């Protein structure tokens, strides 16, 4: 009853109640976003093992790559490249495992049909997942950034803070937009989704230049900057926060990369909306929305 009151239903009858005003639709969708983001936020405080396994251990992995450069007496800016790559990889991992794979996971858990039965846009569920995931990943990324900066003495030389912030926000928007597209695809892919998730980690790290300037990959690097937000965002941020570094030329200027990221974010979100509707329709037709474990 309280729920009905919150969205302002009249209670005059089922037909009248079913005709929602724009305000009711908006409030319900906002509540769905908050509701879907909440378990991700709350989960951070429930079980603390993630602090060890998702901050400390990934930091050690980042440290291993830093030490590869140190053992080769590489310029110190390259250490910063690795740290920045370690920070951004936290978001990519989140996009792959907690966005793209999530709908397939929800299907296996038996939650998916409840989402479809509930009176809100499915995009609200995806936005909620993205919002909660961003908060989770941002906390991890920030911890890795602070620890690694302190331990390895990374020095940042920032060209424009405003541009850094804009690029970072646009990168997250584009990354989670791609996550929403993949989520709708994974909805119908079943077990292939799991393996595709595996295949989208190290290979994407490689073509995105996670630990080295992506321009070193030549044409492959240029293609990555054009289609993978992780590559575009990383390259732009490296140019902006290590402005004096010995940087190989070949990728666009940060302002142009910001434009590419904004375009990616808009296109991917719109595409995700279309894909979700198409995939949902196909999954309904094939009777795969409630099939588990395949």
């Amino acid at each position, binding site marked *: 009853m309280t729920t009905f009151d919150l969205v302002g239903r009249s209670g005059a009858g089922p037909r009248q109640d079913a005709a929602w005003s724009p305000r009711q639709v908006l409030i319900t969708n906002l509540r769905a976003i908050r509701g879907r983001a909440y378990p991700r936020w709350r989960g951070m405080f429930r079980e603390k093992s993630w602090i060890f*396994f998702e901050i400390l251990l*990934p930091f050690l992995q980042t440290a291993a790559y830093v030490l*590869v450069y140190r053992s080769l007496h590489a310029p110190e800016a390259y250490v910063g490249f690795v740290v920045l790559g370690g920070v951004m990889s936290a978001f990519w991992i989140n996009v792959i495992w907690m966005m793209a794979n999530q709908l397939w*996971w929800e299907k296996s858990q038996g939650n998916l049909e409840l989402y479809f039965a509930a009176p809100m846009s499915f995009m609200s569920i995806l936005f909620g997942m993205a919002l909660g995931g961003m908060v989770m990943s941002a906390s991890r990324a920030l911890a890795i950034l602070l620890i690694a900066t302190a331990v390895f003495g990374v020095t940042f030389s920032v060209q424009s803070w405003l541009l850094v912030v804009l690029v970072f926000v646009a990168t997250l928007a584009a990354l989670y937009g791609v996550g929403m597209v993949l989520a709708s695809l994974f909805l119908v892919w079943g077990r*292939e989704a799991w393996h595709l998730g595996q295949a989208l980690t*190290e290979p994407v790290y490689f073509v995105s230049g996670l630990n080295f300037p992506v321009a070193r990959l030549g044409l492959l690097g240029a293609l990555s900057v054009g289609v993978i937000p992780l590559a575009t965002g990383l390259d732009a941020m490296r140019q902006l926060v290590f402005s004096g570094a010995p940087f190989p030329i070949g990728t666009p200027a940060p302002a142009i990369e910001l434009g590419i990221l904004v375009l990616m974010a808009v296109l991917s979100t719109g595409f995700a909306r279309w894909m979700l509707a198409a995939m949902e329709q196909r999954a309904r037709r094939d009777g795969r929305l409630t099939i588990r474990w395949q």
Partner: protein
Amino acid sequence: MTGAGTARGAGAPAGLARSAGGTGVRDSLRAFVTAARIGWRMEANWTDPILFFIYSVAKPVSAAMILVVMLAVVGGPGSAALQPFVVVGTAFWSLVTSGISGLAWSILDDRERYRMLKYIFLSPSSFLVVLLGRGVARLGVGVAGALITIGIGVVFLGVPIDITRVNWPVLLVATVLGLASVVAMALLLAAVCLQTRQESWSYPEAFAGAAFLLSGAVFPLSILPAPLQVVGLVTPLGWWIEAARRALLPGAPSGIGGAGSWLAGVANTTQPDLGWCLIALIVTGAVATLAAALVFRFSVHRAQEKGLLDLTTGS
């Protein structure tokens, strides 16, 4: 999983009781083989072999390529000399990642996704045997990835492996002992995942990534502070990779020794001989196996007591 085809009903009451317990050698072997077949089918039966092959090798090959490009970025003769060292180290490391993930993910798969864990406990088969069987499939995928990575290294990157100069006995012994150590560590992570929630999917890889730092797989341990070098030397992974790499690449620089290393200061040699590496691998592997078995036993007991065997979570 014991089935009616085992030695049940042979006439001896003691044999019958043993067979009913599902813990005889034949029962355990049958459970292991069955679990391995299930694991393999779960891994591979959703697609055609070519696609499965691409997925399986993309990860280890990309991991090696990241390091190869890092070396190329820095350039110079030091980088070129380190390339074979890095490619072989990364190839072996893919076995560590897949081996550790296999067992831990089996726990999460069976508990959270398929919800079969409690039924495995109810069956007469040993849970440990079933778990080991399930982990074998992913370890097999890891072996394929490692071989392909080395193959690509030889063909495209000029890694100088000469099959007439490879020390095959040492490579074989080191690999068998090394894989046993990987399974011990995987058991440790399985014990952790038995206690934790659904998000533990990332824990095995995070653990493997952290162990990467202390293994000397892609850079010599000597550049770490002495206490971290000691931690690396008491784990079996570094000794395994050292022995296997030097068996494959005679004359390769030492990953655990080297000038200025803690080991060189203690043992008065910059490059421990292969016999020494194998002995150290046996000792550290035995300690790791014992510790993992104890932790796993404790974890299973706690999971039964706390009702964690049918726990499902979400976020």
